[in-house]
């Protein structure tokens, strides 16, 4: 076999992430759906929805129970890449309140290891997980302010002058132009004042940016979407996103 057949089209490193600027702070959006803040050596992930698969079992719907393992594996790879000192999970880290009890021993051990790899792990409360987690390391908080950034689960909360918001909850996804057609992919939505992360969980799904909840949250013309392609990130203006006003 010739060389050209065995080499794969490797995505250039600089394309697997996209820069995002939020009130002057330089952030990096990774194509796996996580946010990295280099100045603080901090990794942010939203809406892990761990054990979502097993939560459906109550309705006798037996989804393949690999979503927790898949999500943690992805997170582990990201931590290898960025080597953060701090990790923030932006709420809805588990799908329901009894999820912590359903963790397999392996998954629980994996998660504990991940938590112990950093100096500080913060579990922000979400609507699916208002209570602090059980049996895993890390501290809990309703929200967290670092510098001029406020980290909370639901976007649209109070901000003092000069502050910007980093949130999750809505699972943004964008339908945008790709090669040979459109693609609907998870996306970071931001306008310089607010940033909403895509859902990180393997079974978490997405909500199109054309949906109502996004309209009040972003300045119409300033909204950008950093879209998680399969091999690279694309940053596109609102007018190239299907249904953005």
């Amino acid at each position, binding site marked *: 076999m010739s060389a050209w057949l065995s080499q794969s089209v490797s995505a250039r490193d600089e394309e697997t992430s996209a820069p995002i600027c939020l009130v002057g702070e330089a952030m990096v959006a990774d194509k796996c759906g996580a946010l990295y803040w280099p100045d603080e050596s901090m990794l942010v992930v939203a809406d892990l929805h761990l054990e979502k698969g*097993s939560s459906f079992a109550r309705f006798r719907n*037996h989804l*393949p129970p690999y979503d927790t393992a898949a999500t943690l594996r992805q997170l582990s790879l990201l931590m290898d890449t960025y080597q953060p000192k701090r990790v923030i999970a932006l709420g809805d880290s588990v799908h329901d309140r009894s999820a912590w009890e359903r963790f397999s021993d392996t998954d629980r051990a994996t998660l504990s290891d991940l938590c112990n790899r950093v100096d500080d792990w913060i579990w922000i409360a979400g609507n699916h997980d208002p209570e602090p987690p059980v049996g895993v390391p890390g501290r809990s908080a309703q929200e967290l302010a670092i510098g001029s950034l406020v980290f909370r689960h639901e976007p649209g909360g109070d901000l003092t002058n000069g502050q910007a918001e980093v949130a999750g909850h809505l699972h943004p996804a964008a*339908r945008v132009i790709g090669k040979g057609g*459109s693609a*609907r992919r998870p996306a970071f939505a931001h306008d310089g004042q607010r940033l909403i992360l895509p859902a990180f969980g393997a079974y978490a*799904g997405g909500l199109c940016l054309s949906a109502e909840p996004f309209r009040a949250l972003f300045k119409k013309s300033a909204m950008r979407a950093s879209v998680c392609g399969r091999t690279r990130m694309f940053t596109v203006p609102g007018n190239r996103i299907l249904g953005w006003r």
Partner: protein
Amino acid sequence: MPTRARCFLNVQPTLPVPDLPPAFTAWFDGKGWAPRQHQLALLARADAKRDTLLIAPTGAGKTLAGFLPSLVDLAGRKTVRRTNRPGGLHTLYISPLKALAVDVARNLTTPAEEMGLPIRIETRTGDTPAARRQRQKRNPPDILLTTPEQLALLLSHVDADRMFGGVKRVIFDELHALVTSKRGDLLALGLARLRKHAPDLVTTGLSATVADPDALAGWLAPQNTENSDRADIVTVAGGAQPDISILESEERLPWAGHMARYAFPQVLEAIAAHGTTLVFVNTRAQAELVFRELWAINEDSLPIALHHGSLDVGQRRKVEEAMAKNALRAVVATSTLDLGIDWGDVDLVVHVGAPKGASRLAQRIGRSNHRMDEPSKAILVPANRFEVLECRAALNANYDRAQDTPPIRDGALDVLAQHVLGMACSDAFAVDDLYDEVRSAYPYRLLTAESFDRVVQFVATGGYALKTYERYARIRQRKDGLWRVANPDVAQQYRLNVGTIIEMPVLTVRLVSAKQAAQRSSNALRGGRILGQVEEYFLETLVPGDSFLFGGEVVKFEGIREQDALVSRTESGEPKIPSYAGGKFPLSTYLADEVRRMLSSPDSWDDLPTQVGDWLRMQRDKSALPGRDGLLVETFPRGNRHYMICYPFEGRLAHQTLGMLLTRRMERARAKPLGFVATDYALGVWGLADFGRKISDGSMPLDELFAQSMLGDDLEEWMGESYLLKRTFRACALISGLIERRHPGQEKSGRQMTVSSDLIYDVLRQHEPDHILMQSTWADAASGLLDIARIGSMLARIEDRITHQRLERISPLAVPIMLEIGKEPVFGEARDQVLEDAESLIEEAMVGSTTPSK
């Protein structure tokens, strides 16, 4: 391989024919008829309690043959009936179409009444009112006519044993059409269950001629038991050789397109010259166009009607009734008419477009002439030059009575999962017993115990051995070891999800003006004429600004608003999405081989129209002819692009998959491919690098480009992204019950309650690639939307047999596919531009030639 059908009544072994009861002989005498030989043969077989397959052309009296033994038996039962309780269900009739069941009920009731037989004949379909369904369960009719889905539902009820315990006969109509799909799998499992309720039941299959009658005969008989595993076969071949011709025209034969517009005046003449004509087309778009164009020149206002699947049901019924009353001169129809609804007398069948398969054509031609000893008459109308070859191949095949119906596949595991749940709803089962029962169904005769156990575990708890899942099992093993549904809600859920037909979500296509669209304000985009409906998955491949073909027009996609897809008329743009309007059926491998044979043997060109012969001779002079077993690859520059055209003749679906995989490889070879287009015959790729040079200098060797390894890593990689494969997985997930169907009214709550099948697919592919649903998806992909099996055999066939022609300019054979890039039928403003483009292509290809074929 195709087989030759026998041209006479063939019955082995012969059995003594029982006497008909007096009421029957009187009825036949009264009509001036005599029972036909095969009708008596079936009676004899039923008397001997032997399963029987009747293969006969349309018009042979198949339906009466199928029911005669039941009617005779029931006529004898009537004296007993007065003294006993109702005799119960005697005969079950299963048809693939609701409409066919209703039609057959009507055709059966008349003779039964005329003979004075006190027989209750009823239908049961999705449309049957709830009250009547209840009554049918309490007090079943003597003969029940229904569909595979309804049978599955009835078998899942707790009182199924009472309802079906007395069944004597089961009749399967249009068996050839049922067995090749997942519906056939479900039905085969249903038959296995019926046999458990009524061990002595006798089956009768009614079928058109097929390539492998033995497989059908096996389908009708129980497998892996002590009984005979093969039904007797009674074959009635059409008496007279059909009179088929290919329409010859003085007009210029089109290079591309599927509409055959050139031939409409001649088609109208043929309609005028015959009593009743059926005009068959391949797609709804073709039906609409042919209908409109025929009326445009229909100066005598001959009554010509239209019939296809997306028309309103009321409208279709009206056409059917008018046809039955002989009030119409012609009906333009799609495949909704393929199956055996009684249409009164048809004098001529006109087939517009490619026949796609020899058997398919034979079945359609069989529609003409209900007196089977007279020849059927048919005219084939090729819409372009390649279709001339295909029509000729199909005509030859018909003359040889060759058949190319698809084989019966191995039973699908997702269907089996659905069935296992249904059986647990009906009654407790022991795994070993149900396994034996399932293996008695022909498609599952080779099923391993291990696979069956996995399916049972999947149905119970997903099969992941998790405590949390076991607590909420759907079926559960009782203390006595038998499995039973765990909760009445599960049975309710099963009933909402039964069946194997997955209807894709559709959106309404609404036309807005380009000006409104430009404003992009939500108010401006309201209103507008509805053009029709299109499947959601297709729209997901488009971005605003893309143009596509809909209802014969090129429209520009503007966006989606709620359940509407908004489009505007457009004047420009190559619709870059490969043929949406193209035929659904790929060219059969048999016809493809026949076409390649004709191309490679110039002696046979004398049978072709002069224009086509000239075209092929010019191809031979300017490039080369595709060999029968090899692959011709041409490269040439045009404009600022380079083109590579290859001619595998494997059908559009296989070519699309091949296009996806080839372009990946070409990208890695730095050939900078930009796009591709696929037809039934050829695949064309265009791009920026000089393909011809890269092939010649060895930087992109063809034998490696087309190596079988393409189906390894490249396919694996592409699988992760292929929406076609995800769509296939979704169907398997729905059929197996992993995710639930969306039902009208519960969309909102439903959407919040389900995990997208795409996400499940991604996780499964990584964590359990041999999951039974992944196996099921692969099996479907091999033959379905991706047609991977066909690519595999093609790549093996062409190994070391690839011919590269590095050309200065486009070749004659490449013109049709190059025209597809500009899209087939174009109406409105864009037409002239495309025609101009077509003209320049043809001139370029034929430059310097002495016999311009224009």
